[in-house]
C-alpha cells in the first residue's frame, strides 16, 4: 500500500522515547518518588527509542 507502517511507528517511538529519556536525565530526581524511586522516564524512554529504531530498521530492510 505504498507506505510501510513500520516507518511511522518507528519514527514516532524513537521520537517519544528519546524525548522521555532526555527528560529523565535532566529532571529532578525527586519526581521519581512516586514511581517507587525508579527513573522510569529514562529507562522506559531508552527502551521505546530502541524499539523505534528496530521498527525503522525492519521497515527499511523490507524496502531493499
Amino acid at each position, binding site marked *: *500500500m*505504498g*507506505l510501510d*507502517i513500520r516507518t*511511522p511507528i518507528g519514527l*514516532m517511538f524513537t521520537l517519544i522515547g528519546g524525548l522521555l529519556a532526555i527528560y*529523565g536525565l535532566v529532571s529532578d530526581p525527586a519526581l521519581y518518588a512516586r514511581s*517507587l524511586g525508579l527513573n*522510569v522516564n529514562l529507562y*522506559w524512554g531508552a527502551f521505546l527509542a530502541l524499539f523505534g529504531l528496530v521498527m525503522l530498521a525492519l521497515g527499511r530492510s523490507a524496502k531493499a
Partner: protein
Amino acid sequence: MTSIHLAGIDYAILAIYFAFVLGIGVALKRFQKTSEDFFLSGRSLPAWIAGLAFLSANLGAQEVIGMAASGAKYGIATSHFYWVGAIPAMVFVGVFMMPFYYGSRARSVPEYLKLRFDEKTRGFNAISFATMTVFSSGISMYALATLFAMLLGWDFNVSIWVSALIVLAYITLGGLTSAIYNEVLQFFLIVLGFIPLVFLGLRDAGGWSGLKERLAVVATANHFAPGAWSESWSHMTSPAANPMGVEWFGMIMGLGFVLSFGYWCTDFLVVQRAMAAHSMSAARRTPLIAAIPKMLFPFLVILPGMIAIALTYQKGTSGFALPMKPDGTYNYDMAIPMMLGHYFPPGMLGLGLTALMASFMSGMAGNVTAFNTVWTYDIYQGYIRKNASDAHYLWMGRMSTVGGIGISMAAAYLATRFNNIMDFLQLVFAFVNAPLFATFLLGMFWKRATGHGAFFGLLSGTTAAAIHHGLTLPKAAMVGIKGGWLGAIHIYPSEMAQNFWTAIWAWSACFAFTILISLATRQTKTDADLKGLVYSLTPKQAVEAGPWYSRPAELGALVIALVVVLNVIFW
C-alpha cells in the same frame, strides 16, 4: 477527586501522537482511488497488520477501563472473557468461518447475509448494526470526555470536538487503510504505555505472591474463600462461591459460546479487518495472529484492576487506594486512570494518557469505518441508489464518515442529558445481538436454512431475550431497566449471570426457530447460488504449502493449546 496536572512534556507527547496519526491519513490519501480501496483497503493488507488492527479496533477505552474495573470487582475470573470467550471464538472465526466470509467476496457481514439468505435478513442486520455502531461510539466518546474532565479538568466540549475531528480527518483522508494503520500504531502505544504501569503496581504490591496475599484479604473481607480473587476456575462450582455470581455452565455457555462467538464471529467491526487482508490465507490467519497478543491482554488490562483493589484493602508503601463514589462504594472504573496519576511522573504520565487516548480513538475509528461501509454498501447502495458510479460510492463513503461521526457526537451530548436512554439502547442492542451467532452457524453449516427461517429465527431470538429479561431480575435490583418488567419469576445472583442466561435463551430460541421455520418453508436458493457460502457446497480448502505457522489449522491448534495452558496456570 484528585485532579492530575500535566506538564509541558506530557502535552508534547500527546502532540507528537496527534501529528503522526494525522500524518498517516495524509500519506495514504493518494492511494484511495476506488470504493474498494476506501472500504476494504483494496484487499491488500498482510496478515500481521490486519491481525493487530483486528485486536486494536476492539480495544476501545471502555474495554481497557471496564476490564480493569472488572478485575478489581471480580478478580482474575475476569480472564474468562479472554481465555474462555474471545480466544476460542477468534480461532473459530479464522479456521471455520473466514473461508465463507472472504471466499464469498462479500464486502460486509450484512452482504454475506444477503447472498446466503435474503434481502430482509440483510436489511435487519445492516440497519441494527449501523445504528449500534454510531451510538456505541457516541457512548464511549461521552465516557472519555467525562473522564478527562474529571481527571485533567479538560473541557467536555473540547475533548469531544478534538477527538472527533482527528478521527474524522484521518478516516476521510485514508479510509480503512488509514484506520487500520493507525490501529497498529495505537496497538503498540497501548501495550507500551501500560506495561510500566503494571510493572510499578505489581512491584508496589510485592510481586505476584504479595498480590495474592493481599487479594486473599480482599476475598475474606467480602466473605469469599481466600483464593476467590486470584484463582479463575476453582470457585466456579456455584454462583455463591465467586464474586461474579455465575457457575461454570452459565459462564461457558453464556459468555464463552453465545456472547463471545456472537461478537467475534459476526460483528463486522472486527470481521472487516480480516476482509481487508490480501489473500484467503491471510484473512484466515488475521484472527489467529490477533489471538496471540490477545491472550496476554489480561495481564495488561485486568491485572491493574486486581492490583488496585489489593492495595486499597492492604496499603503498599506508596499508599495507593481506589477512590470512593458518593454512595460509599469503590469507583472501580477509576482503577487505571488513578494508577496512571499515582505511579507515573511527568513524561510517563503523558505516555500513559496518550495510550488511553489511543485506545479510545482506535475503538471509535473501528466503529466509524464499519459504519460507513455498511451504510454505503448495504443501505445506500442496497435501498437508496442502486446503480451509481464507483466514484459516487467513494464520495458517499467520505460523506457517511462525516455523518457517522456527527451522529456519534450527537449521541454523546444526548448521553449528558439522558443517561437512561443510552442504557436502554444498549439493552436493546444486546437483545438484537444475542441470537446472531445461531443464524450464522446454521447459515454456514446447514444448507437447508432458508431466508424466512433466518429472519424470523432472528426475530424470535431477540424476542426471547426481551422476554427473559422481563421475567428475571438480578439480586437487589429495581424492576425496570435491570429487568423484571413482566414480573420477576426468577432472581439471579448477579447482573452478569442474568446477562449470560439472557444470551443463552436468545441463542437457543433463534437456533430452534430457524430450523423449524426453514423446514416449513421452501429453499429459494439453488445449490449453485450457495456455492462458497455453505460448508457442504464449498470445495475444501487445499492444504496450504509453507511452514506450519503460516497454516490456519496448525496455528489455530497452537493458539488453543496455549490458552489451555493459561487456564491451567491460573486455575
